[in-house]
C-alpha cells in the first residue's frame, strides 16, 4: 500500500483556487470553523500547566542577570567619567601652580 506523497510544493496563484475568490466568497468559505482541527492544534501547541511559573522564573533570572550587567556597566561608566574629569582637570592646571591659593601659613 502506498501513501500519497505529501504536498510540499507551494501553491501559486495559478494553481490556487483560493486566489480566485472574492471577499464574500472567502467569508462564506471561512464561516464554518473546523472544531476538530482547532482541538488538534491546541493539543499540538499546548504550553503545559506550568508555563506561567516557568516564564516567571526565566524572566526573573534574565532580569537579575541584566541588572548585574547594567550595574557593572554603570560602575565602569562612572569610573571612566571620574578618571576623565581628573585627567582633564590636571591637564588644565598651569605649570608650577598648585590648587593651594597661597594663603597658607607655612
Amino acid at each position, binding site marked *: 500500500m502506498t501513501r500519497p506523497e*505529501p504536498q*510540499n510544493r507551494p501553491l501559486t496563484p495559478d494553481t490556487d483556487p483560493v486566489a480566485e475568490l472574492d471577499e464574500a466568497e472567502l467569508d462564506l468559505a471561512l464561516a464554518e470553523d473546523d472544531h476538530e482541527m482547532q482541538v488538534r492544534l491546541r493539543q499540538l*501547541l499546548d504550553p503545559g500547566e506550568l508555563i*506561567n511559573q516557568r516564564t516567571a522564573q526565566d524572566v526573573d533570572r534574565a532580569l537579575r542577570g541584566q541588572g548585574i550587567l547594567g550595574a557593572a556597566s554603570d560602575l565602569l561608566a562612572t569610573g571612566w567619567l571620574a578618571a576623565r574629569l581628573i585627567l582633564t582637570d590636571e591637564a588644565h592646571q598651569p605649570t608650577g601652580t598648585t590648587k593651594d591659593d597661597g594663603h597658607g601659613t607655612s
Partner: protein
Amino acid sequence: MLPIPHRRSPSSRGPELDRQLNQLIEEHAAAVHQLALGMLHDQGLAEDVVQETMIKAWRSLDGFRGDSSVRTWVLRIAHNTAIDALRRRRDLSAAPEDLRDQVIESDAADPAARAAGRSDLAVLSDAMARLDQLSRSIVVLREVEGLSYGEIADTLDISTAMVKTRLLRARRALQDAVRSEEDP
C-alpha cells in the same frame, strides 16, 4: 551629575512593577508560547521567545498607547521576536524538528498511537511545518487564540483580505494532510 539610563531593572522593581510583570505573564505567556511554538516548532526557542517577549512588553508598558488591545500588542511583540529567532536559527542552520520529535516521542509511549504509526498530531505538525511562516502565525492566532480577522491583521500588520486568503489556504492544506493520512 552622571546620566542615569532609564530602564526597568531588578533594582528598580517595586511591588507595582512586579505586579505588572506577573499580570503580563499570567494573561499572555500561554498565548505567546503557542504562537512561538507554532512558528518555530522548537520548545526551547519558543520558551526563549516567551521570556524575551515578556521582558520587552514589560519594559515598553509605559509607551503602550492603547491603540490596540494589550493582547494584540503583546502578540505583535511575540511575532516580531519569533521572526528574529527564526532569522538567528537560519543563520545557525538548525533544523526545526523539535516539535515533531516531541510528538513522535509521546506517540512511542502510547501503544495505540504506536500501532497506528504516526498520530494525527504528528501529521498535523508536519503539515504545519510545510506552511509558510505567515500562514502558520495566522492559523495559530485564529484557530488557537481565537482572534478576529481584524485583530490578526493588526497583530501581523497585513490586510484582513490577506488574513482570510492565507487562512483558507492553510486550513485546506492542513485538512488535506490529515485526510490523506486517514484515508490513504
